[in-house]
């Protein structure tokens, strides 16, 4: 495996910083009470979404999770439409009908965040089926957490993909917690990737705080799938800095400060920046300029979202069905 080009390193970096700054801003707005609903922040896991998506083609699909903002940003999502959706605005990706847990951009082949743990995995398998059916050389990626590998849908989907030899990448973001319960209480194995062998698919374990390692593992798995080699499993050891939900929401103490600090000391963003400087892919000044540029993009997204109108109540029933609204309206009273 040759090292990624400088261009790829810069591409990965941009994707990571867009996620980091978007999520930090969303967290601040949420904690300030200016955003409705639930929010599951991706901060800390950026190397996974960025490393995976940088290794994909535009026509490769990804399915996502309840912690899905990072996957949409990494696929090239529009921050303004994302922020507007998180605020429930008419200009959001889903017109205010989905919110944080359902952001999607089908034009970017991002098949949606998903509120049901494991629910998106079979959908990625279906996208992989369509790619094989059309022999278009595309692959699909199912992102899911360590907790999702304990639900039946994951097992069925993994086995199906292997049995039908579909071009699917199973990317496990192992952040060591299923909501608030540590992983070692929910499975009797040390590495989630051990499960891959049971489906007869190759599995790789990578440092999920190292975007280059994620990129290289993804590229190898995607190549294999594109050449008809079937599905693969990539476990990325990673960590979320904030709470399961919100930044400090619920205030539950289920992880030690030392543990959080240990992971934050391995922050994937400065680590990647150091690498780029050391190999001459970017200067510190240029990195600062990229961060400033993206910070401005995030500020513009917030401005756009805050200025956007709420959805029109007249649209409440639109989009329940495709085509003419054929839910028959009640007759007038006799």
């Amino acid at each position: 495996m040759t090292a990624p080009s400088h261009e790829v390193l810069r591409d990965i970096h941009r994707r990571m910083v867009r996620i980091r700054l978007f999520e930090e801003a969303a967290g601040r707005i949420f904690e300030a009470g200016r955003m409705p609903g639930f929010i599951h922040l991706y901060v800390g896991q950026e190397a996974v979404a960025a490393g995976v998506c940088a290794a994909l083609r535009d026509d490769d699909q990804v399915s996502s999770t309840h912690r899905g903002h990072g996957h949409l940003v990494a696929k090239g999502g529009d921050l303004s439409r994302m922020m507007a959706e998180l605020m429930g605005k008419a200009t959001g990706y889903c017109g205010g009908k989905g919110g944080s847990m359902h952001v999607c951009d089908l034009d970017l082949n991002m098949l949606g965040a998903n509120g049901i743990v494991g629910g998106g995995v079979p959908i990625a398998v279906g996208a992989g089926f369509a790619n094989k059916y059309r022999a278009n050389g595309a692959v699909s990626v199912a992102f899911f957490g360590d907790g999702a590998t304990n639900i039946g849908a994951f097992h069925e989907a993994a086995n199906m993909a292997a049995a039908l030899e579909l071009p699917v990448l199973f990317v496990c973001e192992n952040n060591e917690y299923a909501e608030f319960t540590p992983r070692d209480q929910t499975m009797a194995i040390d590495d989630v990737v051990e499960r891959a062998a049971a489906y007869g698919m190759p599995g790789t374990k990578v440092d999920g705080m190292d975007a280059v390692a994620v990129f290289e593992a993804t590229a190898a798995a995607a190549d294999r799938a594109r050449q008809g080699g079937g599905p693969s499993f990539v476990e990325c050891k990673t960590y979320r800095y904030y709470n399961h939900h919100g930044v400090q929401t619920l205030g539950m103490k289920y992880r030690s400060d030392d543990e959080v600090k240990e992971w934050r000391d391995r922050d994937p963003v400065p680590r990647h920046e150091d690498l780029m400087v050391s190999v001459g892919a970017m200067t510190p000044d240029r990195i600062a300029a990229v961060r400033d540029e993206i910070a401005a993009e995030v500020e513009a997204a917030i401005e756009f979202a805050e200025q956007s109108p709420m959805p029109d109540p007249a649209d409440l029933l639109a989009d329940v069905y495709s085509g003419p609204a054929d839910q028959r309206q009640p007759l007038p009273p006799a």
Partner: protein
Amino acid sequence: MTELTCLKAFNDGLRQMMDADDDIFVVGEDVGRKGGVFGSFTGLIDEFGERRMVDTPISEQAIVGLGIGAAVSGLRPVVDLMFMDFVLVAMDQLANQAAKLKYMFGGSARLPVTITTNGGAGLSAAAQHSQSLEAMLCHVPGLKVVMPSTPYDMKGLLVSCLRDDNPTVLVKNKRMFGVKGEVPSELYEVPIGEARIARQGADVTVVAYSRMASESLAAADELAAEGIDCEVIDLRSVQPIDIDTVVESARRTNRIVVVHEAVRFAGLGAEIAAQVSEHAFDYLDAPVARVAAPFAPVPFSPALEACYVPDASRIAAQIRATLDRGQRPSG
């Protein structure tokens, strides 16, 4: 026109649709080499091969999820769930995913998935292979559900489902596969959401669907000899329901009996009774009556199952009682 069985009408319609559109494929348990557990897909693998007739592991969630992912990627999957009871195994993918993606995504998704399944009792298949679960599906916004009772409607509704950009569920009744009727050889649509007045009458409106539509027609024949003139409405689609046709008929006949094979409690009959009372209350000369299964799992023994599933004689007894303004027949 050719005389075909319900099963053959389904098979012919699917074959013609697949022939015309390479985006249509069938995925499910034993749909390929076996041709489906009741023979619905017989011969299709010879014509379309394993690429388009996809045998899968026994994994209902993943089968439906595969259909969803393929549909949002532009294909038009036919997802077969061997028995309607197995819908429950796949319910997250059906109700939380397929039904809701379009709305949750602000309209940007298209989900042309047709789910085909086999429902109904009467084969001594017991409680996990005999259910009529349409009320559960009808309760989920985003799904359409059709339950044909004739070979003509079987083909026409299948074609409509396959051409629809929404997730649709087509329920075949297991005891109707051999029922024969005239079926055009060309492709045609029976619109989803349009009921059919299967028999015109003046004294009472019987609303039914699937196999209970034929049982209701048999009851109507029996009552005609007694001078009772029944109108029989075959809903054909249970989501959406053609309530206009039902209400219009209720306003003419002033009496309504709803018949279904599913259990009575919270079944389609309850919804129809409510809507009829909302829109035709002043026209009714008797309470809306329901003929349905009792609130119990489907039993195994033929002796018990015969008491469980409604039939023409029970329907006829209820119609007589409704005409006498009583709620329930005696005995």
